[in-house]
C-alpha cells in the first residue's frame, strides 16, 4: 500500500548507510547518558541515606519523650511519698565529684567525608574495660607476690588457680562489675537520703534509658548532618554541570 510506505519513517534504501551513523549516534547518546544516570543514582542513594537518618532521629526523639515522661511521673510519685523537701535541688551539694556516667567520643573512620562525623558511646557507671584492666593488674600483683615467697607458693597458686577459674568462667568479673554498678547507683540515690522510695529507683532506671536514647540521638544527628552535607555537595555539583551544559 503506497500510503503505508509513505508512513514508514526510515526508507529501506538508506538503511544500511544510516545504520552505522545511527549506531554511532546511539553509542554517543548512551555514553552521554551513562555519567548522568550514575550521578542521578548516586544522588538518589544520598537522598535515601539522608531521609533514613532523618527518620531515625525523629523516632528516637519520640522514644526519648516517652522515657522522660515515665521518669517525670515516677519522680513525682517519689516526691509525693517522700515529701517535696527530700527531692529537691537544694540537696545538690557542690562537693567535688566525678561523673559516674560518661561518654567516649571517637572520630568517624570514613576519611572520604568532608564534614566531621563524631561517634558517641555511653559508659554507664564506669566502663567494663576499666574493670577488666583493674583485675588484670590485681592478677599480676598476685603472681609477683607468689613468686617472691616459696613458703606461700602453694597457697598463692591455689588462690591464682581459683582466680583463673573464676575468670575463665566469666562470672567473677561480671559479679564485681555489677556490684560496682550497684554501688554507684546507690551513691546517686544517697543524695536523697538512706531510705528512698522504690519509685525513685524506677525513676533512676527510666532516666538511664533516656540517657541511652540521647546518645543514640547524638549519633543519629551527626549521621543526618553528614548525609545532608553530602547531599548539598551533590546537588551543587549537578547544578554546576547543568549550567555548563546550557552554556
Amino acid at each position, binding site marked *: 500500500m503506497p500510503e503505508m510506505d509513505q508512513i514508514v519513517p526510515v526508507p529501506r534504501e538508506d538503511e544500511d548507510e544510516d545504520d552505522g551513523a545511527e549506531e554511532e549516534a546511539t553509542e554517543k547518546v548512551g555514553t552521554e547518558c551513562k555519567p548522568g544516570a550514575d550521578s542521578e543514582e548516586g544522588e538518589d542513594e544520598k537522598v535515601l541515606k539522608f531521609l533514613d537518618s532523618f527518620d531515625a532521629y525523629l523516632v528516637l526523639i519520640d522514644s526519648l519523650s516517652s522515657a522522660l515522661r515515665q521518669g517525670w511521673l515516677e519522680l513525682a510519685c517519689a516526691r509525693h511519698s517522700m515529701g517535696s523537701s527530700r527531692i529537691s535541688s537544694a540537696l545538690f551539694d557542690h562537693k567535688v565529684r566525678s561523673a559516674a*556516667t560518661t*561518654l*567516649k567520643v571517637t572520630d568517624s573512620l570514613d576519611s572520604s567525608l*568532608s564534614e566531621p562525623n*563524631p561517634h558517641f558511646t555511653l559508659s554507664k557507671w564506669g566502663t567494663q574495660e576499666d574493670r577488666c584492666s583493674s583485675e588484670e593488674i590485681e592478677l599480676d600483683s598476685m603472681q609477683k607476690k607468689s613468686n617472691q615467697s616459696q613458703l606461700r607458693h602453694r597457697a598463692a597458686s591455689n588462690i591464682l588457680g581459683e582466680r583463673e577459674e573464676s575468670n575463665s568462667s566469666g562470672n567473677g568479673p561480671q559479679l564485681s562489675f555489677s556490684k560496682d554498678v550497684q554501688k554507684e547507683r546507690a551513691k*546517686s*540515690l544517697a*543524695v536523697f537520703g538512706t531510705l528512698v522510695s522504690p519509685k525513685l529507683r524506677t525513676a533512676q532506671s527510666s532516666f538511664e534509658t533516656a540517657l541511652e536514647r540521647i546518645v543514640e540521638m547524638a549519633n543519629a544527628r551527626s549521621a543526618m548532618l553528614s548525609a545532608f552535607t553530602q547531599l548539598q555537595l551533590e546537588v551543587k555539583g549537578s547544578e554546576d554541570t547543568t549550567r555548563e551544559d546550557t552554556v
Partner: protein
Amino acid sequence: MAGRAPIPTSNSALIAMIADEDTVTGFLLAGIGNVDLRRKTNYLIVNNKTTLKAIEEAFKEFTTREDIAIVLISQYVANMIRFLVDRYNKPVPAILEIPSKDHPYDPTQDSVLSRVRYLFSAESVASGRY
C-alpha cells in the same frame, strides 16, 4: 579530604544540661553530675528566677569546655537563646534539644531539623505551588 577539622576525641567526656529541676534531678540520678575542683558543675537548673544572661553564659561555657561532648537543653530554654543555638555549628559538643515536663517537643523549632528542612522547601513540589 583536605581541610577537615579533627574532632576532639575523649574517653570520659561529660554530658552537660540546661533544663528544669525535674529533668536535671533525673539525669543526676542517672549519674552524669560532675563537680570539678573549681566547684563548677556541668548543669544549670532553669527556673522562674534564672536570668537570660545566666542561661547564655552557661551555654557559652558548656559549648567551649573541652571535657563536654553533649549539651542537653530543654527546647523552651533553647527558644530563649535561639539566636545563640542557631549560630552554633560545631560537631562537638553536640547540642540536643529535649522536651520538658511543661513544654512538649516541637520539631519545627529544633535548630538541627530547621537547618535541614530548607532542603525540602527548596526541592519539594509544594514549593512550586506558592
